[in-house]
């Protein structure tokens, strides 16, 4: 019995050990680039009923690729297969509303951010957050340490003993676990739609997410008792924004996209495309 178990485990371990070390050497003179997106994350990227992938990121990707002189192909991939797909070379870029964090930078490279928006709270209009410190104003946690401190303390007081909903593996989840874990119950959701359902049914007292997402939810007819309340927070643990994920070996590709992105931000293209899809300007400051 024990020997069979060991054999099975050994086989499995050998297989597992071999996989990540499989060398991936790919074309260095970039002509075509394959970009992976989920196609299920409106309005960042979504699939229309004919199967075509549209949205903020596809439009922006097409523009950047044109500037960089690359031919880009967008393929749909569900999130669980995204990271191994990048590492295995199935695609060269992940562009899926992925926030740039220091932890992630250990594994892959990011382009400079192509979108950034403040973190905001969505709650019933009579929530204590509406009267919290700095409610309704934008607070930069990097540039305004004292103001940031006060705003965070205000949020902690307003949410004491309550339940907050965030989307898992986002900078908002990181903020919640860093500052709110001890005062409130933090529930993590796989998708924003699921969390919005729980907000409406009263299981959670507030949502923390980026501003355009919350504004879009609040504008729906069945969300009339909810509004964006409390302070809007940017910087600090919220990071610099969303960026394109690229393998560490492909620094030249990252440089190409960085250059194209700088141009696109400078001439207002990013502002135009983001206003078309998000209704607000998402250009990183």
């Amino acid at each position, binding site marked *: *019995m024990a020997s069979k*178990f060991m054999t099975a*485990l050994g086989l*499995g371990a050998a297989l*597992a050990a071999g*996989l*990540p070390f499989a060398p991936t050497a790919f074309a260095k003179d970039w002509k075509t680039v394959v970009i992976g997106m989920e196609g299920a994350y409106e309005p960042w990227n979504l699939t229309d009923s004919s199967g075509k992938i549209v949205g903020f990121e596809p439009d922006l990707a097409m523009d950047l690729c044109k500037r960089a002189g690359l031919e880009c192909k967008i393929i749909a991939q569900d*999130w*669980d297969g995204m*990271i*191994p797909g990048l*590492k295995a070379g199935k695609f060269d870029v992940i562009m899926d509303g992925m926030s740039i*964090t220091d*932890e*992630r930078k*250990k*594994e*892959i490279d990011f382009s400079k951010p192509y979108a950034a928006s403040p973190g905001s709270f969505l709650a019933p209009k009579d929530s204590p957050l509406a009267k919290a410190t700095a409610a309704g104003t934008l607070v930069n946690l990097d540039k305004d340490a004292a103001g940031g401190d006060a705003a965070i303390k205000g949020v902690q007081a307003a949410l004491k003993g309550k339940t907050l909903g965030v989307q*898992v*593996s986002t900078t908002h989840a990181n903020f919640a676990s860093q500052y709110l874990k001890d005062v409130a119950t933090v*529930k*993590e*959701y*796989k998708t924003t739609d*699921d969390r919005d*359902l*729980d907000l*409406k*049914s*009263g*299981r959670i007292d507030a949502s923390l997410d980026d501003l355009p997402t919350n504004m879009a939810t609040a504008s729906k007819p069945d969300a009339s008792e909810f509004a964006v309340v409390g302070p809007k927070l940017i910087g600090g643990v919220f990071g610099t924004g969303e960026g394109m*994920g690229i393998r560490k070996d492909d620094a030249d590709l990252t440089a190409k996209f960085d250059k194209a992105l700088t141009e696109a931000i400078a001439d207002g293209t990013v502002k135009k495309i983001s206003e078309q899809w998000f209704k607000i300007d998402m250009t990183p400051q």
Partner: protein
Amino acid sequence: MDFDFITKTFVRLLAALPLTLSVWFLSVVLGGLIAAGVTWMRVSGVKPFEFFARAYVMVFRGTPLLIQLFVVYYGLASLPALRASFIWPFLRDAFNCAVLSLALCTAGYQAEIFRGALLAVPHGQVEAARACGMSRLLMFRRIIFPIAMRHALPAYSTEMISMVKSTALVSLITLWDVMSIALKIRNDTLVTYLPLILAGAIYFVVNYIIGAGFLALERRLSPHLRPRPS
């Protein structure tokens, strides 16, 4: 090999194991009770009961568990009438919804296992029992149940193991079990395989123990199938 990362990840995964095991245990026990009821309905001979039992098995085996979880947790909560009722405090909690939903699902599969096991009881034995004058209850207790249970054990062990892995779906309703934590670590750090391999090892050990337990039970209960001592 970043041993620090491996150790930290492994500890985080182990910390989620009690959640996985408690959801699993409670749902299979509750599911077993529901399945017993459904099976009883199925063999009762009363047409409406039989129809209900068949429909129950059809619906809960025929739809994905993920969607069943979604309906029990989010779907029921979206009905204002339910939110005002006395079961809301129960359904409000994600753990309760997880146990309930998984129990309803496994009951469908378990009912089919019970049905197959009852079918395997040789008719000759039942006839003999009746000829001896055994009451229905005695016949069930001493003839039908032992034979059926022995026949059901392999399939039941399969279902038990399948349920352990099904608990991985509860991240849909904000419960973070071993697999979900592994995927979360993966998303946070973008380390491709290590969290999954560690989670896989934990599941493998748990499932191996369960499988070995059922195998031992099977061996104990079927001395007549073991090779005769020469």
